[in-house]
């Protein structure tokens, strides 16, 4: 695997924007047929590293250092765009995060696949081109490849589109495939199919893979070797099994600890926030969030090491778990939540149905209806935490909007806060935390006004007092009240959103994918905040998420949705351990698990 000269050799790569250095000297190699993962959070420079290697940086960004591809004379960093074009698509393929924007909406998929072949040498006839495209799609296990090759991107599902993008990347049998978060926009089951295809193709044809992701578990199931990036530098590298079983850098250790959402452990979040590239201090970039930091960390630690990997930390020899990072605690009572014998549900839905008018089959025919949600029953009791899981299109968001009263059901009804017969929207009412912490805060309002919005007497001194109290409760300083949302990081913004939702002391809190837009290192902070805040006041919580780990960590009851129907419901732990419905089983099997094998060559496995 590592014999001979490396396929890709990156030396001292830097990327600069006008004012700041975003990638600060990165060096690594990728051998032929080797799969290397780059792990990092937003702002770590992982995507820029890959883009710089292909000369695909945006205008205004400059790359330095050198990137060499075996068998090519030129240095890819200083090469002209024209020279790079000969390499891109031919020797190096690229898969992007968003399959919709990576495909041109006005061309058929087959045309886009053959375009790559056409550009690099052979000029197949129209028919041969179509055949070649269909063949590629078949190799990527797309059902009915001929039809898919004739389809336009919007006629395909997300997974099919990503296979199309993969087909374009693989069209010329490249030596290296660069994947930038290739499955982040996809459902877990589709994610597994795509990564299986990438791994399968790499094994069969000896394609090397550079796999960029924020998901440790995913990287562990795909790659041989992993590079951990933080603040524009590689802080640790080595074989996957070594890095994940015996991480050395405090950041890697903390990241592993905080990623583990197994109930019963309490993953302590990494303190602080992921710094913006311009805010990095001199010396070790992680030192201000690190439990081991001391005076020595003001000096930049070099990346040192041998075959078993390298680490850039002065204190990497401190053994064991880091102080304050992971605190095992007794299994929580939440796992065995039981319906109060006497209690009335605070929110109750019966036969909830939502239909939308579909497309007419005949021009003057009746409009058929499409059911997005079909006869859902749901009871939410005080103190209960219900998780709703399902893939995109399962009706999760629709259910939540109906429960919130933001949308009207086509059938069935919701009894509870904000409804006829239920308490109003103030105290004891219903509030919601949204997915996108930027979009859910009015950019023109100060945090003070945002948080006070659901309060009955917004302008009063009492309300002002309450806002400060809430900000403190979600761990934000008092000065935050006077600032605007854009001055905060994603995790902080989500705290502001949570503070607003908690302001009127609601009886029911709904949360729509509350952590999916957040970095791993702050995810646990927000989940813990949601949990403690709702536990304090016995607030009922209903969370939707595509991430089963999040649901398992946060909730006591789970509802599995598929195509608008509830297929399984029950206590989280029992559904997790013994799913009754085959779909639930399939969902659970698709969740990538952190593989921390004892030795080499272990297969990905699912935690019990």
């Amino acid at each position, binding site marked *: 695997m590592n014999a001979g000269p490396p396929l890709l050799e990156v030396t001292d790569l830097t990327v600069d924007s006008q004012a700041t250095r975003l990638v600060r000297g990165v060096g690594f190699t990728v051998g032929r047929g080797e799969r290397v993962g780059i792990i990092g959070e937003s702002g770590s420079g992982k995507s820029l590293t890959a883009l710089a290697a292909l000369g695909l940086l945006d205008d205004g960004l400059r790359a330095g250092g050198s990137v060499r591809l075996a068998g090519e004379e030129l240095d890819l960093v200083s090469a002209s765009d024209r020279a790079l074009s000969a390499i891109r698509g031919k020797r190096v393929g690229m898969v992007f995060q968003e399959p919709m924007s990576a495909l041109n909406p006005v061309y058929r998929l087959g045309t886009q696949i053959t375009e790559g072949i056409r550009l690099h040498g052979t000029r197949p006839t129209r028919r041969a081109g179509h055949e070649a495209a269909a063949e590629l799609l078949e190799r990527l296990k797309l059902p009915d490849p001929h039809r898919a090759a004739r389809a336009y991107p919007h006629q395909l599902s997300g997974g099919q589109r990503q296979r199309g993008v993969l087909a374009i990347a693989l069209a010329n049998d490249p030596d290296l495939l660069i994947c930038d978060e290739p499955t982040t926009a996809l459902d877990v089951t589709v994610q597994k199919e795509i990564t299986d295809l990438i791994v399968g193709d790499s094994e069969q044809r000896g394609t090397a893979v550079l796999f960029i992701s924020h998901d440790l578990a995913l990287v562990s199931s795909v790659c041989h070797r992993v590079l951990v990036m933080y603040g524009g530098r590689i802080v640790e590298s080595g074989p996957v099994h070594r890095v994940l079983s015996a991480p050395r850098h405090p950041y890697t250790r903390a990241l592993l600890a905080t990623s583990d959402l197994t109930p019963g452990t309490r993953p302590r979040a990494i303190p602080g926030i992921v710094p913006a590239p311009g805010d990095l201090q001199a010396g070790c970039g992680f030192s201000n969030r690190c439990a081991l930091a001391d005076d020595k960390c003001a000096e930049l630690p070099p990346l040192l090491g041998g075959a078993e990997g390298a680490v850039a930390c002065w204190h990497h020899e401190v053994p064991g778990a880091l102080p304050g990072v992971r605190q095992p605690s007794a299994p929580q009572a939440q796992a065995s939540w039981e319906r109060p014998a006497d209690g009335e549900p605070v929110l109750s839905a019966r036969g909830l149905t939502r239909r939308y008018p579909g497309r007419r089959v005949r021009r003057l025919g009746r409009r058929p209806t499409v059911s997005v949600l079909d006869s859902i029953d749901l009871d939410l009791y005080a103190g209960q935490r219900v998780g709703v899981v399902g893939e995109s299109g399962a009706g999760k968001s629709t259910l939540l909007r109906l429960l*919130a009263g*933001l949308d009207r059901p086509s059938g069935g009804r919701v009894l509870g806060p904000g409804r006829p017969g239920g308490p109003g929207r103030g105290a004891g009412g219903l509030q919601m935390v949204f997915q996108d912490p930027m979009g*859910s*805060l009015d*950019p*023109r309002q100060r945090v003070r006004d945002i948080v006070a919005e659901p309060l009955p007497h917004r302008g009063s001194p009492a309300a002002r007092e309450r806002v400060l109290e809430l900000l403190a409760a979600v761990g934000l300083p008092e000065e935050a009240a006077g600032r605007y949302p854009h001055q905060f990081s994603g995790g902080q913004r989500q705290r502001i959103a949570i503070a*607003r939702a908690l302001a009127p002391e609601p009886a029911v809190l709904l949360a729509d994918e509350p952590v999916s837009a957040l970095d791993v290192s702050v995810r646990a902070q927000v989940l813990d905040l949601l949990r403690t805040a709702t536990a304090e006041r016995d607030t009922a919580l209903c969370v939707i998420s595509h991430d089963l780990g999040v649901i398992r960590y946060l909730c006591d009851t789970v509802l599995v949705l598929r195509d608008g129907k509830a297929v399984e419901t029950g206590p989280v732990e029992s559904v997790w351990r013994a799913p009754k419905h085959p779909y639930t089983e399939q969902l659970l099997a698709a969740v990538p698990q952190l593989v921390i094998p004892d030795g080499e060559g272990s297969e990905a496995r699912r935690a019990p």
Partner: protein
Amino acid sequence: MKSRMSLTIGGALVLLLLVTALLSLVWTPHDASHIDASRQLAPPDAGHPLGTDQFGRDVLSRLMEGARITVFAGVVAVGIALLAGVPMGVVSGMSGGWLDNVVMRVSDFLLAFPALLLAILLAAVYGTGTLTAMVAIGIASAPGFARVSRAATLRVMAGEYIDAARLAGRSRTAIAVRHVVPNILDVVIVQASVSFATAVLAEAALSYLGLGTVPPTPSWGRMLQESQDLLFSTPELCLWPGLATAAAVLGLNLLGDGLRDRVDPTLEGVR
């Protein structure tokens, strides 16, 4: 930095326009309408820094008084368009459904109706004059404001903070005032500065056609029209009102750009 420049230059030009207009109320070098047959087309001298026109009237004085008409025209036209168009757009964008359709079709109708025709119609009913002309321009510009604010409102309404505001128990009016309007302000300001400039030009055009400002009241448009025949013999006569119009329009556009960036808190760090 760039937006600060445009704010400063735009502000200075607009301020100059306003000061000139105000000053002309109390003082001009000469009576702007006084005809002096002995001094026709006199070149600039100490008494008449910009010379005189073909009737012997002082050009500088007329230019100063013309600024009054320009400001008046812009304020009336943009004011009407703003007050009619923005609420139309916001209501339309927020309500959707049949109301949206009705409001937008009305605005399409107005958009299809030539502004000039409207001005002639109004002039026929209410008599010619700057005010009538500007009311016509204002009505004709309203659909533009409606369209722009509706599109911006739709963008804002798709935001989750609108859902959050609804869950907070905010009324529709409160959502419109507190969330929608502040967030569409940027496009409205740009539209206003462009419309102001258009109104200034329209006043000139309508006056030229005899549908706007009535002689002998000086307006930059009239001055342009009157100097047109003398373009080859005394070109400087049309140079002054032309330059003044250009400076006013440029100033308004720059001010609009600068203000747009000013009201955007996300650009605070950039500034």
